[in-house]
């Protein structure tokens, strides 16, 4: 029997899932030769946590009216969504290799009409939270207690429509809405605080009537604590998740490659080797502990 506590085992299993998703994100952008790599990698842990730990969704009941809803407002991060959905069984993993191709199920930005498990289309920034507010209002009208999660980029909080939606969520007391902000600190042309400062982001959201919690966006336990905190408030909840652009691939984390840069074949191989090393470490932690016992 393993001496590994159950909670540690769960965490390691989730970390292994996240590595699988990361590897698929790197592969699919490598194959497509386009796509937003660093901003996809920054949300992989959040997506993994949501789809394996938080959202009540299932590939068997993809259209169930009572399912939780997820809106990826930062639509350019869709490789992380697609790889998560594929690994969660919503469609065949083979679909990932036709991402961005003509006629593909997986468009350059999420299209709800094409992809099983994609609840809302997105692409142009600043639209996801308003759609999420509409979904939450529908849930309340239908007395369906589902949760609506909107994952937004930090840069898109510069869009006015996000604040119109934030105002409405508070006005209608939508406690089932959760906004997660991928606070990776960068946008297309540089640092968010240099281009159009967002801080103090927490105080701004709080002044709009939201319950705000901070989290490490690469730490499942930290995300879980933040969610518990906002859930307990009875208010619309926002989690500002501090993340690292390109997280999981060291030469992407250090910022030498930015924005939309896709990887050449050699770089894809480098990234995959690094992720495989992480994967082996997780395997050792899982099985090594067993060996000791």
């Amino acid at each position, binding site marked *: 029997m393993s001496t590994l506590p159950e909670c540690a085992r769960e965490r390691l299993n989730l970390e292994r899932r996240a590595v699988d998703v990361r590897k698929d994100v790197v592969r699919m952008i490598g194959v497509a030769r386009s796509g937003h790599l660093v901003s996809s990698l920054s949300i992989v842990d959040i997506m993994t946590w949501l789809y394996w730990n938080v959202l009540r969704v299932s590939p068997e009941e993809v259209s169930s009216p009572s399912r939780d809803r997820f809106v990826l407002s930062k639509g350019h991060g869709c490789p992380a969504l697609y790889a998560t959905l594929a690994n969660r069984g919503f469609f065949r993993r083979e679909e990932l290799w036709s991402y961005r191709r003509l006629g593909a199920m997986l468009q350059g930005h999420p299209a709800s009409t094409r992809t099983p498990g994609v609840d809302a*289309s997105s692409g142009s920034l600043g639209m996801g939270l308003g759609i999420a507010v509409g979904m939450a209002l529908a849930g309340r009208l239908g007395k369906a207690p589902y949760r609506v999660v909107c994952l937004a980029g930090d840069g898109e909080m510069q869009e006015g*429509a996000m604040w119109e939606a934030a105002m409405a969520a508070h006005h209608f007391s939508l406690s089932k809405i959760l906004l997660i902000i991928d606070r990776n600190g960068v946008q297309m042309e540089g640092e968010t605080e240099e281009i159009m400062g967002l801080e103090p982001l927490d105080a701004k959201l709080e002044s709009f009537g939201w319950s705000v919690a901070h989290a490490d966006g690469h730490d499942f336990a930290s995300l879980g604590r933040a969610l518990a905190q906002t859930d307990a408030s009875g208010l619309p909840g926002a989690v500002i998740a501090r993340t690292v652009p390109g997280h999981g691939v060291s030469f992407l984390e250090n910022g030498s490659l930015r924005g939309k840069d896709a990887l050449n074949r050699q770089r894809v191989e480098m990234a995959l080797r690094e992720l495989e090393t992480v994967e082996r470490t997780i395997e050792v932690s899982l099985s090594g502990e067993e060996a000791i016992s």
Partner: protein
Amino acid sequence: MTTERISTRDAYGTALLQLGERVESLVAVDADAASSTRASVFASRFPERYLNLGISEQNMVLVAAGLALCERTVFAASFASFLVGRAYEQIRDAIAIPSLPVRLVGTHGGVTVGEDGATHQMLEDIALMRLLPGMAVLCPSDHPSAVAQICAANAWKGPAYVRLGRMPLPLVYDPSDTDFHIGGARILREGDGVTICACGILIREALEAATILSQQNINAEVIDCYSISPLPSEIILSSVHRTGCCVVAEEHFLKGGLCEAVSHLLCEHYPVPVSSVAVRDFFGQSGTPEELQEYYGLTSERIVSAAFQAWTLRRRSPGVF
């Protein structure tokens, strides 16, 4: 027929009430314009299914999309300028591209809004909306047809836009008439001299023009082209094959609206002279609705002149249809 005048925007409240009784999933969203759009009557009757999002048209459209994604039947209304102008990208990305069955209603279309002036007088809404693939675009000419067309929009599988006006108008149709559908048209007067395609407030003007033309022995055929997209192509072509010339009249910029839609149809399938009665390259301004209608030339007299112009150049060899 009654001499009572009533605006097409009043039909929004009437239709919403009718549909609200029937369709339990119906929700009306608003951007704080309910007393102007007449959504207020629905709000009083069904307060739990009426959502005022405040002065935030972009958010109203996004909320409408979210509701529709969760199987609600959604109507979203505001002044045409603010709904179509302010929230165009939201309409395009969140409603038209995913082909969501959201019914958008733009009130206060055209110059006959009156004293509020250019910012409030939308003359390019039909152009913007008919550019969107799958978007049905309707422009009714009186209260009964507006009620019926809003109900027709509700039965449409995809997104729809209904353009309404503020100016009280006499009735064209019998109040019990409900024979309107997406892609349809109504021949209000038959004739073989000139085809007049019109919509909205220009229908009444077209009928008056037809009377004047008949005194000059030109029998005009008047078609209510209320469905601007999809266009009732067969009805228009069939008429023009008989008349050999066409006038198009609308309360909209000449660019992008019914005039261009009909001209393009005829160019492709049966080229004939086409004259237009529409607003040229000028924005609106303040004035009474009647003064503005006259100033911008949206009158029966202009239709008569246009008809003479087209008729003089008419195609004389009838085509095979």
